[in-house]
């Protein structure tokens, strides 16, 4: 299929990008100190909270990996979206972890480790969070660039220049306005990406046909295209791993946690999660339907990651294509800017700051964060250009995320709810979780077993480490942040 991308579409994209940058730059005038820069002064209400949370966690990368899963595993892939959404609704309804974490007035997740365990464990956690998070973000540019290259018809070499330009633009407003700028742009981006998502879904269903999609999955994938238990990519181990992983992502993933910390109160954060859970159901299932439509329209012999954008380039007319690409760029920019801020905040607040003997002023912390932003951008740019994914994108993201997520979730739960938890237990949990995850890279362990194993090892490490040590435990967690 050839693309219908024309000058009209480029015009729509240019207007959108210009408006976003202007809105982002507007936010800088509200940044007075580090709490404005990292958590928008903790002034997020329910609806802007939903918008920024959804925009942050819905990117072109999200559409690409979920569509890839839809293309490869059919309707069975919906299990991923269902788990992500239901776990978030559960967290919102119960307030599990997020309510307690918000009440502590934190800015980063590792900060909890100093409050509950020790400063050194905070630094270790910060290093693991930064490594896992930045490796995770490292593939974003390449995958997003692939999407843009296919849909616009530009060569991948030229797209690298375009993606570099987009990253630089995101960097400018993130560095200047921090979370305030990100919240403003996220709102615009949420509107654009929602419109794009709904448009593509309707177009895909209409073009491919519901019945033809069903027949295509039945013919090409058999029972495994419908039942996650009959599909070799999934099964019970994968389902349990996904429940744990999403529990960890929604509570301890730095970009999501920053939204929790930015809300006005614990009650607002609960409401945000309850509503956003429904967005997360659609965030998964709609792109998966695009992948299934690509299977029906293009057949099973396409590159699985590229099938969805190839289909869109062929079925969407000029004008609509521009709106959709603007929506996808919206998704890209909102995710990348939030991730830049999140990982740079870890480097500055949880690695560099605790290691200094003399504390920095709030203004100096903002400057340090800005420098870390630039560092992360440079790394992501180079990693994105040469690294080749070892398997499906979704599983790479799962494993790089669980380098720290498994240990962090276990340590946070133990720190909040288990009085016997000790610092040694915290170290063992973080080490156990990271070792099992890194095993994926070196020993090619299947993703679900590596992931599940990392949670099991983290839990075992926390219990054994805590029982083996007798240090006095602080039961009252205090705020350690300089605001």
């Amino acid at each position, binding site marked *: 299929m050839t693309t219908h991308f024309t000058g009209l579409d480029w015009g729509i994209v240019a207007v959108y990008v210009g408006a976003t940058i202007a809105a982002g730059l507007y936010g800088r*005038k*509200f940044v*007075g*100190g580090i709490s*404005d820069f990292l958590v*928008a*002064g903790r*002034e*997020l*209400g*329910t*609806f*802007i*909270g*939903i*918008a920024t949370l*959804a925009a942050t966690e819905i990117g072109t990368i999200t559409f690409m990996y979920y569509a890839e899963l839809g293309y490869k595993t059919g*309707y*069975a892939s*919906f299990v991923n*979206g*269902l788990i992500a*959404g239901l776990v978030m609704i559960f967290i919102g309804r119960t307030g599990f972890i997020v309510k307690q974490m918000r009440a502590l007035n934190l800015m980063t997740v590792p900060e909890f480790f100093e409050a509950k365990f020790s400063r050194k464990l905070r630094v270790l956690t910060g290093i693991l969070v930064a490594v896992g998070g930045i490796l995770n973000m490292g593939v974003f540019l390449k995958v997003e660039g692939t999407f843009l290259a296919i849909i616009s018809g530009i060569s991948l070499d030229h797209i690298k220049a375009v993606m570099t330009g987009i990253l630089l633009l995101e960097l400018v407003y993130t560095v200047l306005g921090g979370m*305030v700028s990100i*919240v*403003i742009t996220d*709102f615009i981006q*949420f*509107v654009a990406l*929602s419109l794009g*998502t*709904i448009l593509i*879904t309707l177009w895909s269903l209409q073009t491919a046909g519901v019945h033809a999609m*069903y027949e295509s999955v*039945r013919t090409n994938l058999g*029972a495994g295209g*419908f*039942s996650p238990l009959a599909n070799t990519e999934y099964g019970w181990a994968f389902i349990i791993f996904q429940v744990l992983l999403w529990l960890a992502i929604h509570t301890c993933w730095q970009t999501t946690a920053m939204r929790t910390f930015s809300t006005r109160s614990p009650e607002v954060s609960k409401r945000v999660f309850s*509503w956003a859970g*429904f*967005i997360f*159901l*659609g*965030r*998964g*299932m*709609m792109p998966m*339907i695009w992948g299934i439509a690509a299977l029906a329209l293009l057949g099973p012999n396409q590159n699985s990651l590229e099938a969805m954008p190839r289909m869109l380039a062929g079925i969407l007319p000029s004008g609509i294509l521009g709106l959709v690409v603007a929506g996808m760029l919206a998704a890209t920019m909102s995710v990348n800017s939030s991730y830049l801020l999140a990982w740079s905040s870890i480097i500055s607040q949880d690695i560099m700051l605790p290691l200094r003997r003399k504390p920095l002023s709030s203004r100096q912390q903002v400057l340090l964060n800005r420098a870390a932003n630039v560092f992360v951008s440079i790394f992501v740019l180079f990693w994105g250009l040469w690294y080749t994914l070892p398997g499906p994108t979704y599983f790479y993201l799962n494993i790089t995320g669980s380098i720290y997520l498994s240990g962090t979730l276990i340590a946070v739960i133990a720190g909040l709810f288990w009085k016997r938890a000790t610092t040694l237990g915290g170290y063992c949990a973080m080490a156990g979780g990271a070792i099992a995850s890194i095993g994926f890279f070196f020993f090619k362990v299947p993703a679900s077993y590596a992931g599940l194993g990392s949670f099991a090892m983290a839990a075992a490490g926390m219990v054994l480490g805590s029982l083996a040590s007798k240090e006095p435990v602080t039961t009252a967690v205090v705020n350690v942040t300089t605001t």
Partner: protein
Amino acid sequence: MDYWYYFWMANFVVAGSAFAVIAVIVLVRGIGDLRQMFSRLGEESHRRQS
């Protein structure tokens, strides 16, 4: 196989509809939230300067 198909399609319809409805609600009410955030941050900034 068909049970799974109908189960997933029911989920898809609920998810898609909820996504669209919540997006509209957030669009309408999010503007108010943004204004309130600007107002409070502006007040805070003014207080710091004075």
